[in-house]
């Protein structure tokens, strides 16, 4: 073994053995050698199922990038704050990132609420900000320094309605959660329904913590002529809706869930009642089932195995959003061969054909999301697992 590779092995071992101390490790390096990327995530609190995998993903991949030599000749120094899902805290941390930590870029913002609170800070400081929040408000209207990676609820509705149209279903019922996600997606669905010739003939809601939705579903069941039911919502609510749906013997009417339930725990919680449920979801969920020629296959399979091996928990699309955000940022820095905030922003906007876990991203001055409907795959639950629906079914 040559002296050089010995040294390299030693370095790799240190990087693997000391992931927790990476902050102090990079912290001791001088300012010229590091590039500071900030992040504010909801690691604890009600949105922790978003923030926790995002936090793990960012730390994991920044370690990897640094071990491979960093970006534009510099090591990345990650500064992460936990807002606990509180928009006020998020804004305070955003100000701290800009004023005290002097970050050149920002990847984070787990929820729409925290993201919207932080946007003015980064816009004013002219620091590029890639958000991990779902709602379309983040990038519509387009703001100069704000980008985002997750699919929007509007796209989810469009994907569902596209599928309804293919099956010639025109009369549907909706049962929506009253939480932020459910309410926002419901509004988007109502807005795009006419475009697809879909008529919403019955509408019910449920609280995010409700434990029984049979009353609402009984009403829907009694409404005449309903061909399918759509459920915008996330958390345990949609799982209970699915269970009650089967309990009331409604399974002959197709049930559509949203990408809000796109994790294995939904199937586990809903049990056999989930059979036949359809939903739009990112490729990450069905990585191993994608055909080999799918451009996303390598990226999602790699991310899934890396995340699951390191974090010791099942992969979720939310951590994937953080992966996409980090690498869009890093590749923009590489292309700019600089860590100057404005140059990085310009390069992010020029992102073209970036293959992420969420889809293939091509941004433009008028599109700071860069995803189209092909980023969503239509899935059906079969035999207690996701199956990829072939196009047109």
């Amino acid at each position: 073994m040559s002296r050089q590779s010995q040294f390299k092995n030693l370095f790799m071992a240190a990087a693997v053995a000391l992931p927790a101390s990476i902050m102090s490790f990079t912290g001791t390096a001088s300012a010229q050698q590091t590039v500071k990327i900030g992040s504010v995530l909801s690691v604890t609190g009600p949105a922790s199922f978003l923030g926790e995998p995002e936090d793990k993903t960012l730390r994991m991949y920044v370690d990897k990038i640094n071990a491979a030599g960093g970006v534009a000749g510099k090591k990345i120094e990650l500064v992460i704050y936990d807002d606990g899902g509180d928009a006020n805290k998020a804004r305070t941390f955003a100000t701290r990132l800009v004023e005290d930590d002097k970050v050149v870029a920002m990847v984070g913002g787990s929820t729409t609420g925290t993201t919207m609170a932080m946007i003015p800070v980064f816009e004013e400081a002219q620091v590029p900000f890639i958000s991990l929040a779902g709602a379309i408000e983040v990038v519509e209207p387009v703001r100069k320094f704000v980008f985002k990676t997750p699919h929007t609820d509007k796209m989810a509705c469009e994907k569902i309605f596209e599928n309804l149209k293919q099956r010639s279903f025109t009369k549907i019922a909706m049962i929506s959660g009253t939480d932020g996600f459910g309410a926002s997606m419901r509004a988007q669905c109502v807005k795009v329904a006419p475009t697809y010739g879909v008529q919403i003939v019955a509408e019910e809601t449920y609280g995010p913590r409700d434990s029984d939705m049979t009353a609402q579903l009984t009403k829907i069941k009694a409404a005449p002529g309903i061909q399918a039911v759509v459920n915008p919502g996330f958390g345990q609510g949609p799982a209970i809706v699915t269970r009650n749906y089967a309990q009331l013997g409604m399974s002959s009417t197709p049930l559509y869930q949203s990408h809000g339930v796109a994790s294995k725990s939904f199937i586990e919680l809903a049990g056999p009642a989930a059979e036949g449920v359809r939903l739009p979801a990112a490729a990450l969920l069905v990585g191993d089932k994608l055909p080999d020629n799918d451009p996303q296959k390598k990226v999602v399979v790699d991310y899934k195995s890396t995340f699951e091996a390191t974090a010791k928990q099942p992969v979720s699309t939310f951590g994937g959003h953080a992966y996409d955000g980090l690498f869009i940022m890093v590749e923009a820095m590489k292309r700019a061969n600089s860590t100057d905030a404005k140059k990085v922003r310009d390069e992010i906007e020029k992102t073209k054909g970036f293959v992420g876990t969420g889809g293939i991203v091509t941004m433009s001055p008028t599109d700071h999301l860069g995803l189209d409907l092909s980023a969503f795959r239509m899935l059906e639950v079969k035999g207690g697992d996701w199956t990829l629906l072939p196009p047109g079914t």
Partner: protein
Amino acid sequence: MAEFFQFLVSGLTVGAVYALVALGFTLIYNASDVVNFAQGEFVMLGGMVTVFAHAAGVPLPLAALLAIAVAVVVGIGLYWLAIAPARGASAVSLIIITIGASIFLRGVAQVVFDKQFHKLPSFSGDTPVQMMGAAVQPQSFWVIGGAAVVVLLLYVFLERTLVGKAVLATSANKLAAKLVGINTATIMALAFGGSAAIGGIAGVLITPITLTSYDVGTLLALKGFAAAMLGGMGNPLGALAGGLLLGLLEAFGAGYVSSTYKDAFAFIVILAVLFVAPQGLFGRRAVERV
């Protein structure tokens, strides 16, 4: 008519859960005049411990017993560590202590368990039973039956056993109870343990239907408290009636009026009742015989 029965069954199932939580409130309130807002956390513990013990390979009935035992230990611990040292504090201070305990327990559960939702298998399968056109989950019978058994046992305990009578005596007049030789501190610890057990049982019974996570207790405590107020704070029969009534209000409200105003509907009725009868439906009037 089928719809009516569907609403009735779902109202009774949810109502039985509220009734069990309200019963826990009542037992502690009777013995110590404390409104225990950590009551929902006992329900959470009942569900979560069962889930994790079951996942670790413990048979379901044993896991359930273990969960109830854990809840009881936490309940007694809550009394000895937080309530007893604050003897003589005002009612508001004690309520704040229990709210603090509730936040603490939720935090510990988040660390000890995790932040995900979990389910338990239904005790007697998932095939719904058809009754008068309504589809009923077999687990609903467990919840309603379980609530009935708990109420019955509590009644027998309070009315037919010496220890139960000591609880009643402590609740009627603490000083007099002490004078006749009742160890009121032990009785109060017993009340906390007992209501923790009731909460734990509720948690075990409802988890197959409602799923569980570290923070399910918050809403249950709120609804259970509302049920206890509706029925009359401190009255076990009132807790039962209040719980069932609240569950039925929610189900019929969502079914016949609008699901958007389901919670509002229930609380408006409670407010109306409290305006007309401030002691709740079954509350004792504040007249004391001397």
